[in-house]
């Protein structure tokens, strides 16, 4: 259960090499084990440059996409769960776990404690999930704070030290890279204290709980394709409490007609879960007998802010219902959009916008439109209309947009191309945010937080 090497590669489109290795770390003791375990199927780790080249090629991040290359484009070479095989010196380096995020590629090569002559299933490689933990930890580390080049360089320069503490020999000791200082690392904990809790808090006790829900919906307005909408939420906590291991229990409540929470995944600091919480799953047919709370989460909080749990829910209707029609007439498009806010949803937005993109058509040359509410912005070069609806729907809760759009079909080069949105296939995408409101109705209040620690904490939800 160890990693042979870790790389951080930045993808730089347009540069001669297409990217550079920002950081690499090899683990020679693990490499020695790999040699023994893999036997004749052992493939040594390449040096940074050839590795970077092979990786970018495999991930299709180089510009030479012109020719069919069997090792990359072959129809039977389907990579699983972001695990790739890189051709290196006539052999294949496998498994290479590579995750891309914000122009960076995070790579780890886990040790496989058996021969590799045939690829074993990933599930049988004990180091693979550790590689996931490691890379997710790194992603969190690099995604925090401002994403400037200076910030990136600072963080890269911190990495060697960080890994010297968290992963000195390729075996991961903690996946939390967001540390303030090394001398007080939680993994060097004092006896009988959680290894994920760095020190103790001193000061005014307080507990903050916040619930964020997101909704994903696709409406086709077609009889043969079912519309889909899905709500999922995250509970984020920050507990500043004194004592080594304060116990906290947070209960989430639903109103009487609220939609039950499902597929609940919790933070590892949660000490126990009710079987009803564990079994409530979105794969079940919904009925009235479904468990509808309260959902209790007893835990010992870490010092930092953390995601206590994630859940999904099946609300009975989507919050906003949409209708979009597009007709091609001569050289212009006639579009009609209707939006309707459901009456049960709080009509108080932080923002609400509808994006109407046009693909494969060239830049917009002319637009005539009529809206019943809000205003429209035109991004001609991007072939995009943005309908800004604002903070509130009107009383009727229904709004319309209709208009005609013309395009310059000749200037096709720099315009967005899409292989799905061809001809009449297109979409409207809605972006909105409603503060202090949950679609499921799920809430936590003063009474739903129980703290077993000295002092009376201030509770914010």
């Amino acid at each position, binding site marked *: 259960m160890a990693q042979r090497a870790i790389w951080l590669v930045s993808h730089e489109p347009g540069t001669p090499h297409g990217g550079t290795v920002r950081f690499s770390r090899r683990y020679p003791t693990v490499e*020695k084990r790999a040699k023994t375990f893999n036997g004749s199927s052992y493939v040594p780790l390449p040096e940074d440059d050839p590795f970077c080249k092979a990786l970018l090629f495999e991930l299709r991040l180089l510009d030479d996409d012109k020719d069919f290359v069997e090792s990359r484009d072959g129809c039977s070479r389907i990579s699983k769960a972001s695990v790739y095989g890189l051709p290196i010196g006539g052999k294949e380096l496998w498994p290479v776990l590579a995750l891309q995020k914000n122009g960076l590629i995070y790579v780890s090569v886990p040790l496989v404690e*058996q021969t590799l002559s045939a690829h074993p299933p990933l599930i049988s490689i004990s180091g693979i999930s550790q590689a996931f933990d490691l890379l997710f930890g790194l992603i969190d580390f690099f995604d925090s704070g401002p994403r400037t080049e200076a910030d990136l360089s600072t963080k890269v320069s911190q990495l060697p030290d960080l890994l010297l503490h968290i992963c000195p020999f390729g075996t991961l000791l903690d996946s939390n890279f967001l540390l303030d200082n090394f001398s007080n690392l939680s993994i060097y904990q004092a006896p009988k204290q959680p290894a994920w809790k760095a020190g103790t808090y001193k000061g005014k006790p307080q507990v903050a709980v916040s619930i964020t829900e997101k909704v994903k919906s696709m409406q086709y307005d077609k009889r043969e394709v079912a519309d889909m909408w899905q709500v999922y939420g995250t509970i984020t906590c920050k507990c500043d409490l004194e004592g080594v291991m304060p116990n906290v229990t947070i209960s989430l409540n639903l109103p009487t007609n609220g939609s039950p929470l499902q597929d609940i995944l919790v933070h590892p600091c949660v000490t126990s879960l009710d079987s009803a919480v564990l079994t409530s799953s979105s794969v079940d047919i919904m009925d009235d007998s479904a468990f509808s709370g309260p959902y209790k989460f007893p835990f010992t909080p870490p010092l930092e802010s953390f995601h206590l749990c994630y859940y999904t829910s099946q609300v009975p209707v989507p919050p906003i219902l949409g209708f979009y029609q597009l007709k091609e007439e001569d050289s212009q498009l006639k579009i009609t959009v209707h939006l309707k806010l459901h009456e049960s949803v709080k009509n108080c937005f932080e923002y609400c916008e509808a994006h109407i993109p046009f693909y494969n058509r060239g830049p917009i040359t002319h637009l005539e439109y009529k809206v019943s509410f809000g205003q429209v912005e035109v991004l001609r070069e991007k072939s995009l209309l943005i309908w800004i609806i604002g903070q509130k729907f009107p009383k009727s809760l229904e709004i319309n947009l209709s208009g005609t759009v013309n395009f310059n079909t000749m200037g096709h080069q720099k315009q967005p191309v899409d292989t799905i949105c061809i001809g009449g296939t297109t979409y409207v995408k809605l972006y909105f945010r409603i503060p202090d409101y949950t679609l499921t109705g799920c809430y936590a209040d003063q009474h739903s937080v129980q703290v077993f620690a000295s002092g009376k904490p201030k509770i914010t939800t």
Partner: protein
Amino acid sequence: MGPRSADAWARVLAALRASPAAFVARAGAEALAAELLSELRSERLSEPTKVSLLAAILEFPTQLWPDPTAAEAAVSALLDTLALLPPRPAALRRPLLLAATSVLASCGALAPASAATSRLLCVLLRAAAGRAAGPEQRAVRATACECLRELESCHPGLLAGQLGLLRALQDTLGTQAHCLLFVLTLRDALGALARAGPGAPAGLHGLPDSPGAQWPGPWDWSLAGEDVRDPAAPVGREGGRPEPSAGPLDLTPPEARELRAAVSQLLDASYLLTPPAQAQMLQQLSQVLRTVRGQPPALLKPQLVRLLGTARVSLLHAVLASKDAFGEALFTAQDEALLLRRLVGAAQHPALPSPARLFCLHCLLHFPENWPLGPAGEEGTPVLLTPSLATGLLPSLLQDPPDLLARLHLLCLLCGEELGADGRRDCQGTEDQVLLYLQGLLASLRQGAAQPGAPRSSVTLCFRASYLATRCLASHPGALAQLTKGLAELYQARPCLAPHFVDLLEQAGEVLAEPLGKALQQVAVAGAGGAQALQWHLQILTKVAGGQPLGPTLGFLWAALGQGGDWAWEQALLGACRALLRGTDLSGAGPRNLANLLQELARGLDDPDSRDRGRLYYSLFTHLSGSKLGSALGPTRSTPMLGSSLVEENEGFASALTVQEAQAPLQLRRVPQQAKEPPVILGLTVEASEILYSLELRFRVLGPHYEPLEAVQVPCLRPGASPKLLLLPLEPRRPYPTLLDVSVLYATPGGLTCYAQLPSLPIAFADLFLPLPPPSPEVTHPPTFQELWASCLPGGAESCMWGPWQGQALETLVTKHWEPFVMSATPPTSYRVAIRLPPSSQLLLQLEAAGEDGVRVALRTDDWAILPLAGEYLRGLGATL
């Protein structure tokens, strides 16, 4: 070279990191390593610079110290540096420990005899057991534990003797580092005991608490394995976990109780560990419980319930691993169903990152079921995963390609099962729906790929999806026909996708290849896409034309011939012709037309090389029968990497004409032969493991001291027949031992001619021994031994030695080795031996038993050059006694 500054070091380390092999080759490993070690003690450099030097040592020890002895010295130097550090907190202490461990473990210096090993182990154990409080001490303690853990990982069983101490440390200090170290040591110790079987020296003597015992006394290496375990584990499982043939380990009841207590204590404390550490501990404790007989896995249960709910991939993975290890003993059918539902939930959970979801999906397809139906190690849907359960996992066009493919794969597997079960008429409705959905999806993907500017990624996606779908559509001719039709249309729209089609035809198997080949041929010969598409059509025809009717293809090729083109175009044209030559449809007017075409090619192509090839095809076609033509032009599997199409496609043909290098399917054995007079005869038997014809065994004596040997012909060898005896006459020019190089040329029943090199045979000094020639009739008095003895000098040489043969040994020796050569004897004490060594030397021995101590051997020879050989020979006899 003077000492470097911090900046200079930064540059050096950057260069080393960029290309370690090249840098070390340039700078010299030895010099660089020595410089690194000495700079660590320099007072000029700051601590951060020194830490960066140590980081380089930590990462590239094998390049810096390629040899274990040097590595050992380096470890000692690092430990000396550590000892010189002032007692106040120092940032160097931890990196020094890490670097020393890394060098020791990765350079092969970790061994019982190594002084540095025992020194480092003592330092680490002492540091790990330190009691001082304070952040720096805590960090050093944890680091020491990590170092010990790494050494134990590289050499399982190394710390088995310290189990008691580690248990005590884990009890009193209870930090994550101590827990992890103890668990690993426990697992390895039990594994070593289980491997050693019932005869193991001791049970878990160290496990019961015995604080203060044992250390740092002499190290016990008895349980330490050679190196990391040899992966002799069953396929599909990770290596070497003790599942010994002897079965699980039996512990005495008190030991078993103690073990159970230790395990439950560790599990109770596992909540305090970080998630990755919890996952490691759980996996290793499962292995512990599996090693020992009668340990109930139910101990793990309370923790599993807690872990099942978490969003961590590693924890979920650990739960699945313990499920795999214990099956029904730990997970009842209901538990299994719950786990599966959790997994389905996680695989579609929008809050998880996409790779984590995909990993869960992968786990679903390899779900460790209690009662698996399918073969182990293959992907398949678990029995409990019903289509209704998987509705949330349907693929959709809006997903990322990896998501889409993984979900499509699942759908196909589900579909395949559904469609395979003929009896299930009741779910006909869902089945059709699923099929329709799948077809719709594939059609949309094809539409995407058919766009004129579609990027290769979307094309690849379409072909991968088609490849996956083919597997489950095999039993659905209607759907397969639609897929074929759709793909043919795609080809018509974009002939430049030909390489993808060729790849698909190769990978998808006969089910798709047959109908798709036909459809593609039709599109190709219709000439879609105009002149630019010609090269793609030729590529497709090269792949498929062989199995299709000749007529249309020929028509197309004739038409193409009219257009003319460059060398590559001519080669493509010839490639298509070759496919036709190998094809099956050689009836009617086809062959004549083909011959005409080939003749036209041989005459009309621009490039002489192409014309030659055309002519070759024409001659082959007009002279060889169908089956021979097929094998002459057929591809061979042996050399798939050849770049030139010319070489590649003539490989099969050429292989029938050239001699193949092969592994020798025969064995040579020496049989003793005793010749009475020259030449010396070497006896050999030959046995074959397969039928071989027309063998020619060629012998070559290495060195200049023998006459060349004639080759030996054997008409036939069959396995099982009595071995064939060969007698080789050796004619030495000088009587020196040598090596006989043997090679063989033979024909196989398949008609190939092969050449093989056999292991060399040694010809020993004693092989050349002959008795003295019998006296010729003219000589009335054959020379006595004494006369011979005297005649050796002064031209020859004499020597004397002592043989360690006591009592009866001398008699045995003489009977065994010198029987034919004895001239006179008074058994058992005195023998006179005269040996003739061809071509013209002799060796005389006088052996006199000297009491009980041994034998005095006096030897003379008329050829001084053989004296050392004789001495060596006699000493060899002494050694074999």
